[in-house]
């Protein structure tokens, strides 16, 4: 076990590390949407390749701050998907999630972050085709928006203090 926490992020020189295309992070609940994505795979429903899935037990686990973190630090899009309302494996996890994400979605643009970079949706384990549709549409939307500049990495004045290093 390493002793440092999740590492952060901004390379010191402030450049984006990956120039090879769009990256979308998908937070999928284990019971429905992760299964839906599996179903889509089993059915060979072709999808864009930009999505990287993080498996979470339930959308109720979804702290909007994970989304904030992703978008601030330059992930191009965030897709959250869970069980349909009333269908939550944990009965009510997605009800909590819905309120939180709804509020967060309304809040994002106030801070200058394009709300189109964040989407949440409900896809059940049987809805492979729906998953294909969701991923395809969202990926296309993010491609249209282009790479996410995130927020400016360097500060106006503090950054200009000579860091001591070349």
């Amino acid at each position, binding site marked *: 076990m390493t002793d440092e926490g999740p590492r952060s992020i901004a390379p010191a020189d402030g450049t984006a590390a990956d120039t090879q295309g769009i990256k979308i992070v998908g937070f999928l609940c284990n019971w429905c949407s992760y299964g839906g994505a599996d179903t889509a795979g089993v059915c060979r429903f072709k999808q864009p390749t930009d999505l990287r899935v993080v498996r979470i037990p339930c959308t109720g686990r979804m702290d909007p701050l994970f989304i904030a973190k992703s978008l601030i630090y330059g992930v191009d899009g965030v897709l959250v998907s869970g069980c349909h309302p009333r269908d939550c494996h944990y009965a009510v996890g997605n*009800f909590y999630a819905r309120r939180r994400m709804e509020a967060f979605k309304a809040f994002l643009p106030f801070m200058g972050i394009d709300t189109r970079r964040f989407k949440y949706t409900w896809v059940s384990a049987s809805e492979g085709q729906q998953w294909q549709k969701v991923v395809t549409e969202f990926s296309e939307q993010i491609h249209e928006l282009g790479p996410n500049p995130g927020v400016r990495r360097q500060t106006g004045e503090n950054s200009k203090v000579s860091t001591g290093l070349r």
Partner: protein
Amino acid sequence: MLETDRNQLHKLVEEALPELDMVIGWGQSTDSFQTTPVFVRDAKQISQLTLGPFCSQNLTGYLVKPPALDAAPKEGAKPIGICVKGCDSRSLVALIQEKFLTRERVRIFGIPCRGTVDWNKVGKLVDLSNVKSATVEEDVLVVDDSQTTHRIKLEEVLARKCYGCRYPNPLIQDVTIGEPATPRSTSIESSYRDVDRLDAKPLEERLDFWQSELDRCIRCYACRNACPLCVCQDKCIIESREPRWLTQRVGIPEKFLFHFIHAMHLAGRCTGCGECERACPMDIPVTLIKEKLNKIMEERLGYSAGLDVEAVPPLLTFNPGDTEI
């Protein structure tokens, strides 16, 4: 009028003090205009208590922050007296609502508020470096900077939050000092004008705005510590290493995430007292961030924090019929 009210306050505190552990109120700071919180434990200190438009601090945070007081009164523990304005009383409601305090734990001296002075604004009109005296005459602020006596309309130099204030009179209290005040705002629209103004700008301008504002943030956490509802205090995840959300870096992303965390943790809880903004040494409009969330909560979920001790904060509950996307 102020004089009468002050005398009334002194009298009421004097009567109540024997039954109380202390009374938290405002007193004169070492300069001639700002107030500082005072903790009256002894009758000799009562004369320090003051009120009026200079009493900007929200004192309710002291009830729950370390050195902490227990929410449940210990055997024989005396209640604590506290002076609250309208906005402060909402924080108190929220703290009772979240069970950090019991109603019996506090004796509330309610003070109807006609707005508090924002000294930054006064500083634009008057050089505050050598103020000799500052007083209030009705709706005029009189500042003597040892060369001139400036007379400024109070209405021009109030804190930003005051212009949208719907609750100038304390919502819970044991006693009231002075006459009720008239709300400056009675609607959502007039309470969130600053939010709407920024929202009316294009997305890029909003991003530029926050980038340049938050760029000044020095991560001193005054906004957080001044917030009466930032109850995590020493356990705040902004500093925590386990889990580790943020590094020590002071790049704009870190400052954005810091303020996102602050705002999201107050979503549905913020009572709009404006302490975060007042405390900021770098003059960042941090309350505005929370105001946006307050507006969302109010418009979408019909909820305003700190109005009802029985209500459940909206993000701690749900309605299966909530609308979406």
